[in-house]
């Protein structure tokens, strides 16, 4: 290892001047709104600032994206360094080497950042626009500016995360989005459940953040830098080393890469809601619906995937970490999808769906198909944001009713929302021309290929089991999404009092005050709400053609994968190996899109729409009561955590508290008491010995003085007497002497 490997590869990167404005515009928006919103009380102004700043970021991102497009592929990277954030001087890292790395406050706009920035600002803008309609009620009592300011801060943090040119910048954004999700989930902080959910999200994220921190501490100790370009440039030579010694432990580089990858994945688990840290995301529905869309669809949850893609040079060299990611992803996909089957809260269904889809993405990452995983991030962002915003419209149309049993038949009341959500449902289910097909099928195929290995079927059975779990999860996904559509939009409206089959339940509203009871007619939402939903639906339909798999090359190119190529460590290791398209791939595609997903949707339709009384579903539940109960209660995992982790933690905290009270405080108090005793002793010494000596001298002088003091009585008659005495003595001496 010599110094030359630490030189960053900035030769291909162009400096630009206005990159900083992309993240900072929303920050300015946050500052302006946050500082003046309370006093101005002008919602038009707040809207203008918030939407304008995000729109400005979006336009700037588009501008730089177009600028990148016209550059040759190898030099598609822009950067702007604002100032030096940390200067560590010389630090000793692994192998007795010194690093002189500094951490710059720098932004980087390369292919991955560009894609993410477009996603964050674009979807963020649509969600902002939706919020202006959805938060109508909050506009009246001037909580609104706070909401918009938080949203802007969130966009700033997220842009910092994706545009930062080193891991510390990413970590700043990473923590920033954690904070913002806390603030936004707890937006209705006067509600206990919102505060609890916010705390849960924050604490769970913190657990993951510790993993992430350990990961990038290790990266710094091994690589000697946190800058992406430097890291990527030195990865190859590091991997060529026979062994790396760190903290007295010598091991092969792969061991360290596995360790780093594992730690980083713990961070990704927290932020992207994977087992076992996924529990915060369903509870995060306590926030306003646009927040759910922003956090759970477009931005925050994708940060773990962005991180893995960004640091793919580590994960490619960490096979064990990749296997862990694959397995956890598949398990999450399956488990969360199954939980989604039995939820009645429309937002809960979508929340578990999100967790499940994130599991799919991690499966893709775990199979080494980073571009496929990233592509699913994008398509998922479109259709899940659309579904979330659509559910927000539905909730608002039904006057803050979230229970799907109290909906139904909304199709004729709100056609725009219905069609948008239906298209998105097709997309998420993976029906052929829609985007979900391209992204999800690609992931599942990559996973399958890990076992298939070009026809030899000699790959690890882990891939096979992951693929099977993914297929089941895909089936569940199609089922519960169709169930959602059927329960919400088909049949007759049950909220107005017409409920022939007694399906409704008493209102259990969340998020807003249950201010409305009695009959009412649902209505289409205003334009600023359905337009974003519709735009997102169109994107969900069409975006799949951005990344057409090789097998379907007659439909288009894998533009997205090619676009991301410059940041990949192993270019096309998995994609270009197979020139001849296997028949198995076609077979699986046809199976998935013709039989598997439509079958699940048809089953859901048969259960819930073809039979308006839901008797088939009820019979099923009656026959397998325990199964339904377990799924509905989400396998009691929250309770399991409560019993296994939280209660012992609380008990431990209580014991630590008593330890602190009795032993630590006791020691402190004992020390204080000893000091006090010593102080008393020295006080006594001071009073009686030191002061005593001084006072004794003074006393001696006083006694001596009091001998003569009597002469100075101050009484004039005494003096006169003495005068007379002297006179008499003089006379006696003179005349009688």
């Amino acid at each position: 290892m010599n110094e030359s490997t630490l030189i960053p590869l900035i030769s291909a990167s162009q400096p630009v001047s206005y990159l900083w404005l992309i993240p900072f515009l929303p920050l300015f928006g946050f500052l302006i709104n946050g500082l003046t919103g309370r006093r101005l009380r002008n919602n038009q102004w707040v809207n203008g600032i918030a939407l304008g700043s995000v729109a400005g970021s979006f336009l700037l991102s588009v501008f730089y994206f177009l600028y990148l497009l016209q550059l040759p592929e190898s030099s598609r990277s822009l950067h702007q360094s604002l100032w030096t954030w940390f200067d560590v001087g010389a630090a000793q890292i692994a192998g007795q080497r010194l690093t002189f790395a500094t951490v710059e406050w720098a932004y980087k706009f390369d292919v991955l950042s560009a894609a993410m920035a477009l996603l964050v600002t674009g979807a963020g803008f649509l969600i902002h626009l939706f919020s202006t309609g959805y938060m109508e009620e909050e506009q009246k009592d001037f909580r609104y500016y706070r909401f918009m300011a938080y949203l802007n801060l969130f966009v700033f943090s997220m842009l910092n995360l994706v545009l930062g040119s080193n891991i510390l910048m990413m970590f700043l954004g990473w923590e920033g989005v954690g904070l913002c999700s806390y603030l936004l989930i707890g937006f209705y902080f006067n509600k206990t459940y919102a505060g609890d959910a916010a705390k849960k999200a924050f604490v769970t994220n913190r657990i993951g953040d510790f993993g992430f921190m350990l990961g990038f501490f290790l990266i710094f100790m091994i690589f000697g830098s946190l800058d992406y370009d430097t890291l990527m440039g030195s990865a190859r030579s590091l991997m060529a080393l026979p062994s790396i010694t760190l903290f007295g432990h010598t091991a092969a580089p792969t061991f360290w890469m596995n360790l780093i990858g594992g730690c980083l994945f713990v961070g990704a688990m927290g932020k992207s809601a994977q087992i076992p840290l996924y529990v915060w995301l369903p509870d995060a529905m306590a926030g306003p619906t646009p927040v759910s869309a922003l956090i759970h669809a477009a931005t925050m949850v994708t940060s773990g995937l962005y991180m893995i893609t960004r640091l793919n040079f580590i994960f490619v060299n960490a096979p064990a970490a990749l296997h862990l990611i694959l397995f956890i992803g598949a398990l999450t996909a399956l488990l969360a999808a199954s939980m989604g089957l039995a939820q009645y809260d429309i937002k809960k269904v979508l929340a578990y769906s999100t967790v499940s889809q994130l599991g799919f993405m991690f499966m893709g990452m775990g199979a080494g198909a980073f571009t496929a995983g990233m592509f699913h991030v994008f398509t998922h962002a479109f259709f899940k944001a659309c579904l979330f915003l659509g559910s927000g419209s539905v909730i608002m149309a039904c006057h803050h009713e979230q229970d799907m049993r109290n909906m139904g038949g909304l199709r004729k009341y709100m056609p725009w929302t219905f069609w948008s959500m239906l298209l998105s449902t097709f997309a998420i289910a993976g029906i052929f021309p829609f985007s979900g097909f391209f992204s999800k099928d690609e992931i599942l195929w990559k996973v399958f290929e890990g076992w298939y290995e070009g026809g030899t079927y000699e790959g690890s059975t882990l891939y096979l089991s992951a693929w099977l779990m993914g297929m089941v999860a895909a089936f569940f996904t199609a089922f519960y999404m169709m169930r959602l559509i059927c329960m919400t939009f088909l049949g007759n409206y049950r909220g107005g009092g017409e409920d022939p089959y007694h399906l409704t339940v008493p209102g259990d509203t969340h998020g807003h005050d249950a201010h409305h009871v009695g009959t009412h007619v649902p209505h289409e939402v205003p334009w600023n709400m359905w337009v974003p939903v519709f735009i997102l639906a169109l994107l969900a339909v069409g975006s799949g053609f951005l990344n057409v798999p090789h097998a379907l090359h007659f439909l288009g190119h894998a533009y997205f994968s090619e676009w991301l190529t410059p940041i990949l460590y192993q270019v096309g290791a998995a994609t270009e190996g197979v020139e001849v398209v296997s028949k198995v791939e076609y077979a699986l595609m046809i199976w998935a899109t013709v039989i598997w997903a439509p079958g699940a949707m048809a089953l859901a339709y048969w259960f819930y729409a073809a039979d308006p009384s839901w008797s088939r579903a009820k019979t099923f539940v009656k026959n397998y009561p325990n199964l339904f109960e377990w799924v509905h209660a989400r396998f009691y995992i929250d309770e399991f955590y409560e019993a296994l982790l939280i209660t012992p933690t609380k008990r431990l905290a209580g014991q630590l508290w008593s330890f602190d009270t009795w032993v630590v405080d006791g020691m402190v108090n004992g020390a204080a008491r000893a000091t006090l005793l010593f102080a008393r002793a020295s006080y006594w010494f001071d009073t009686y010995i030191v002061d005593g000596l001084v006072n004794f001298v003074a006393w001696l002088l006083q006694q001596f003085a009091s001998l003569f003091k009597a002469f100075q009585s101050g009484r004039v008659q005494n003096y006169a007497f003495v005068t007379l005495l002297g006179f008499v003595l003089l006379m006696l001496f003179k005349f009688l002497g």
Partner: protein
Amino acid sequence: MNALFTSIGHNLFLVFGLLACAGAAVMILSTSAVHSVLGFLFSMIMVAACFLCLSAEFLGMAQLLVYAGGIVVLFLFVVMLVELTKYKEKSLFTTQIKWSFPLVLIALGIFAYTMKSNLFDAATPVALSLSSGLAEGLSVSAQNAQMVSRGLFAGFLLPLEILSVILLVALVGALVLAKSERVS
């Protein structure tokens, strides 16, 4: 009886002097301040009588006017002003009285003894006289006031003027000292 009166008439000075001393004793020993003042007044009048006996008629009259007419009245005013009766005095006398009386008696004894040992005993009185320039046109034995005034203005003009200034200063000083504080 007649002889007694004659004797008294011959020893008037002794009588007046002893009465003056008696008044003085009343003055220093009386418990009441007003009685003290009255004793002082009596003593002063007797002293004036003594002056007459010593053929200083002008001074005798002056003594009466100054003391009995002015100073004693002043004392009376002040005694009444300070309302001595308001404060029951803890004791009239100072604690040094037991030393003072013997000492005073010893001093008096020394004086008496000194005078007894014929310092001035042999001297006989002579008639008052003035120098020839000053005594022009005066009956020295009859016109005492004129004689004193001539002697005063001839030999003691400067002390007299200084005395007048001192009196003025005392007047102003007494005014300043005794006037009440102005409340600003």
